[in-house]
């Protein structure tokens, strides 16, 4: 295995979980998610500019994964695939107790999903999220408020 292949494998292992779970939350099925993950890594390899540090690299992967998924969802033939039945794939291998939260997260509107992920999972501040997504901080705060309202509605007031 060449040095570049080793380097790529390290990078793959570092980010695969993050990219996969983010893509799955958008696409809700395994096949599309795997396609999206591959596309994200191919885009990374085709990029001419290298990223300056790990934080930038991570942010790039998050934003690119979200954009790739949104692009895939825009394709009309995929929209028909987005039925709730697809959630069953996850339920098969998960505990029923945590399934409710999972369903709530996945049912978030797409525009809130990345913001919720960055804020609640990765622990970024709203200002940092604004920089990553190139949106005003006030918009990010609004998205978070709406997302919380949405989650509370589904989970019955507990978050």
């Amino acid at each position, binding site marked *: 295995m060449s040095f570049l292949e080793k380097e790529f494998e390290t990078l793959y292992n570092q980010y695969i979980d993050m990219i996969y779970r983010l893509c*799955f939350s958008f696409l809700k099925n395994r096949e599309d998610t795997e396609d999206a993950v*591959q596309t994200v890594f191919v885009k990374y390899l085709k990029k001419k500019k290298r990223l300056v540090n790990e934080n930038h690299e991570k942010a790039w992967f998050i934003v690119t994964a979200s954009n790739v998924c949104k692009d895939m969802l825009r394709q009309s033939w995929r929209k028909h695939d987005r039925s709730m039945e697809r959630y069953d794939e996850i339920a098969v291998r998960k505990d029923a107790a945590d399934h409710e939260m*999972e369903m709530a997260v996945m049912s978030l509107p797409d525009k809130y999903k990345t913001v919720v992920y960055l804020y609640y999972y990765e622990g970024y501040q709203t200002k940092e999220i604004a920089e990553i997504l190139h949106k005003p901080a006030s918009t990010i705060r609004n998205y978070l408020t709406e997302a919380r309202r949405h989650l509370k509605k589904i989970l019955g007031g507990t978050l």
Partner: protein
Amino acid sequence: MRNEKIVTAWNRLNPDRNTKERIFQNLRDRLETNNAKNIPQRTFPRFAIGLLALFVVLVGSFGTAYAASATFRDYVHTLFFPRYTPEEIVSIGNGHMTGSFDEIDVLRSFLDKWNRLEFGNSVTAKENGNHYSLFMQNKDQLQAFVDSNDDGYCIVVYIERSEYEGTEGIWQVTGYQIVENEDAEIMKNQLEPYTDE
């Protein structure tokens, strides 16, 4: 601000080991296929073979025709070593001689040169050749009698017109002589005053 419930929910979406390996393998295959597509073809392109065959056919045909046909050989030689008819050679010669399509221009140029280069030693054309009279032997042969600074002599200039393709003819100086004024008058009597019509 991390939320444990959300973190747990999202962590449950993580891929299992098999999925990770499958994606990695698919990704490697995809990249290898892409790289293979980018490798330039090492086989000799078909169009080059076609061009080469055409070249061979053309060279063969040319060689056969050159060897078999004297007319073709002559034609090829004419392309590389142009041959001219005698008329064409005269025409080319005329084109390279000094001359003009205006007889007065030819005379004035000659007289200017006469004075500058002192063709007649001490006999020079008066006022740069402004004083002259033209007579003709026929419409293509003129004699100009030019006053000189030496009162006893005048300069006689012989001018002839040659045919030149596509024009009314080209005038050229063909000779000159210095004669005494009395002899000049005798010569004039044998000629007709020139009119350009």
